[in-house]
């Protein structure tokens, strides 16, 4: 395993980057990448190459790769035209480069002639002992070096997710969700045409990478299915792998084959692959991200026994439906838990699962109920609905004509403090008892303009706030499935050990 870490180390941990095609025109890929590297504070050495040696962003450039001090750069990022890249690659090899990310287009995606250029580039790279990522790729992100080597912007906060995508744009979408919800990324890479390194190579790297806790991949097709299966299996045996598959319908498949060039996978066979390799499969970009973020920040559930906790009825009803449809076990409320809650709120509460307090809660009720639910031995997971309602009323007070008089200022402070507190209480109870508590509220979206204290509190606790009960259930269902996969794997290994 450490072999792959060593081979791809310069891609994600370069000590220096040679960047070719750094035009003085800020619309060109080379200039954009240079800007993004500087803008987000890449910590290594940068060697921008401009044919004329012109200043770019007010900084000096080098005229040729040959001017780069030998041994000072181990990664090349090529934005020069395909026609000159072979020459660039030779010079980069002389400078000590071991990996080249080729952002330039005009290769396999551009027809027969481009395909020939691509084959020649790979052959030359092999001869020079250089590994090729791309070509026609969007770039690389590695947050522990503040490295945003990309021809497009998203630079997510640092975090435990690593991402690989067969589409630069879907990769960007994943990272944009990271920017939005603050569960960040360790690494990100777009495959481009996968001339040499392919999706499975990056997954193999992430599986071995100690900074990656969960991997997220967008996939349209694989070249070598059996190797993919083997890599995915080895990955899932250690950490979760979330995959979004594109091209699951005939029309989508046709679009995919013109996009990636690879033969798209048969959807039903891929479903089998996911089952066999313990891959957590998502249906949409947002679900894929939320699932990765859930794995990254929530403890794994030990089983499917779920409690739904809500401060209002309808959400609980819909989420109960969603739990049942997702195969989660909506347990009957344990008698001792019912007795405990009976002592805390007026009798009109639901006295069942979903636990609906029907507005009967007082100042400390919600944190206390969260703690008791999480502590209960018959409970594996909790979905908590409706955070932020108090802060939303606070905002209505704040933005109205009576504020801050008539006691409204104090009331607003109380509401916001309470919602923040609920978010933290959920995270703390979850950590203390090592059980997932997923917090869901539409206010994540609807109250983004002013920043509702509830969802903001969830974000501050380092977790994702789900925009609906359904989205929380989708994530929890897959977490339960993965947990079962791991448990079975471990019990099978124990059996083998005993024999």
């Amino acid at each position, binding site marked *: 395993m450490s072999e792959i870490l060593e081979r791809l180390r310069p891609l994600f941990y370069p000590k220096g980057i040679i960047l070719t095609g750094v035009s003085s025109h800020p619309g060109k890929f080379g200039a954009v990448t240079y800007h993004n590297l500087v803008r987000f504070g890449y910590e290594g050495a940068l060697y921008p190459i401009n044919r004329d040696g012109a200043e770019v962003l007010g900084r000096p450039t080098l005229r040729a790769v040959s001017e780069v001090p030998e041994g000072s750069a181990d990664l090349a990022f090529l934005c020069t035209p395909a026609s000159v890249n072979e020459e660039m690659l030779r010079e980069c090899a002389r400078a000590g480069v071991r990996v080249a990310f080729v952002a330039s287009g005009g290769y396999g995606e551009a027809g027969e002639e481009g395909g020939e250029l691509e084959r020649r580039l790979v052959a030359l790279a092999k001869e020079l002992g250089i590994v090729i990522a791309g070509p026609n790729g969007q770039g690389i992100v590695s947050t522990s070096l503040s490295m945003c080597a990309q021809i497009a912007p998203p630079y997510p906060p640092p975090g435990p997710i690593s991402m690989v995508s067969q589409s630069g744009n879907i990769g960007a979408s994943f990272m944009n969700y990271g920017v939005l919800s603050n569960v960040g990324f360790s690494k990100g890479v777009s495959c481009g045409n996968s001339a040499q390194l392919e999706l499975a190579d990056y997954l193999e790297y992430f599986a071995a990478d100690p900074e990656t806790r969960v991997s997220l991949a967008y996939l349209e097709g*694989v070249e070598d*299915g059996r190797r993919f299966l083997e890599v995915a299996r080895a990955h899932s045996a250690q950490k979760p792998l979330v995959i979004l598959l594109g091209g699951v319908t005939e029309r989508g498949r046709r679009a995919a084959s013109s996009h990636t060039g690879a*033969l798209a996978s048969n959807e*039903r*066979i891929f*479903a*089998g*692959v996911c089952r066999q390799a313990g891959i957590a499969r998502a249906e949409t970009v947002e679900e894929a991200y939320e699932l990765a973020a859930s794995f990254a920040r929530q403890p794994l559930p030990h089983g499917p026994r779920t409690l739904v906790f809500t401060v209002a009825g309808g959400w609980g009803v819909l989420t109960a439906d969603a739990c049942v449809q997702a195969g989660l076990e909506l347990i009957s409320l344990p008698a001792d838990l019912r007795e405990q809650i009976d002592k805390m709120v007026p009798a009109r509460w639901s006295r069942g699962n979903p636990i609906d307090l029907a507005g009967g809660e007082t100042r400390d009720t919600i944190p206390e109920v969260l703690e008791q639910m999480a502590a209960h031995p018959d409970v594996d997971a909790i979905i908590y609905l409706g955070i932020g309602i108090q802060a939303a009323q606070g905002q209505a007070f704040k933005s109205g004509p009576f504020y801050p008089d008539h006691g409204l200022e104090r009331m607003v402070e109380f509401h916001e403090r309470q919602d923040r507190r609920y978010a933290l209480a959920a995270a703390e109870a979850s950590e203390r008892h090592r059980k997932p508590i997923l917090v869901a509220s539409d206010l994540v979206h609807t109250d983004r303009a002013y920043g509702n204290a509830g969802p903001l509190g969830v974000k501050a606790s380092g977790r994702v706030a789900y925009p609906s009960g359904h989205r929380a259930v989708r994530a929890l269902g897959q977490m339960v499935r993965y947990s079962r996969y791991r448990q079975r794997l471990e019990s099978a290994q124990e059996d083998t050990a005993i024999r």
Partner: protein
Amino acid sequence: MTQTLSEFESKQLLAEAGIAVPAQRLVFSAEDAVRAAEDLCYPVVLKLCGRGIAHKTERDLIRLELLEEDEVHIQAEELLARRGPDESDAGVLVTTMIQGRREVIAGLVRDPQFGPCVMLGLGGVFAEALEDVAYAVAPLGAFDADDLIDALEHARILGRFRGEPEVDRAQLDHILETLGRIGLEQPQVRSIDINPLILMGSRPVVADALVELEAGAS
């Protein structure tokens, strides 16, 4: 190019790989058909059997539930008379009648990316409408066969259902695992289609099978 084995040969290949198939006799005359039927015990089924003979139901080449000597004699002659111009080596396959209320389809396909994959689907009259099919990549590991069964949308039908017992998982697992092993060990086998695999109570029994080989491999 591929070549389709006859039902008789297909079942032999399965049997050699370790999938139990019901006793069968391939005969070329009505008299031999009668002797075979007596050997196997009534009721019996007759089918015209030869390489490349598919769509037996559509071509009316199956005679089910024959109970006595005369019937077997008449129907065997009738079937032999239905041989097409290039089907002169075809014979009559005599088997015991397999009866059950539930049917599945099991098979082997080769995916261009994932290689040999085992297929399981619901069979019977609604099979095409329901399209309830799942796959697993060969070889099937410890839980893969069971998971493949559970991956069917209507897996419930294979459980205790309307007076029928639950399918014998060990036997069905064995069939699925063996199909996967054939896929890995016999590269000349392009595909296998066991259709139907009839559940006689809890026991899955191969009622018909077609194996496709790479041309020239036989």
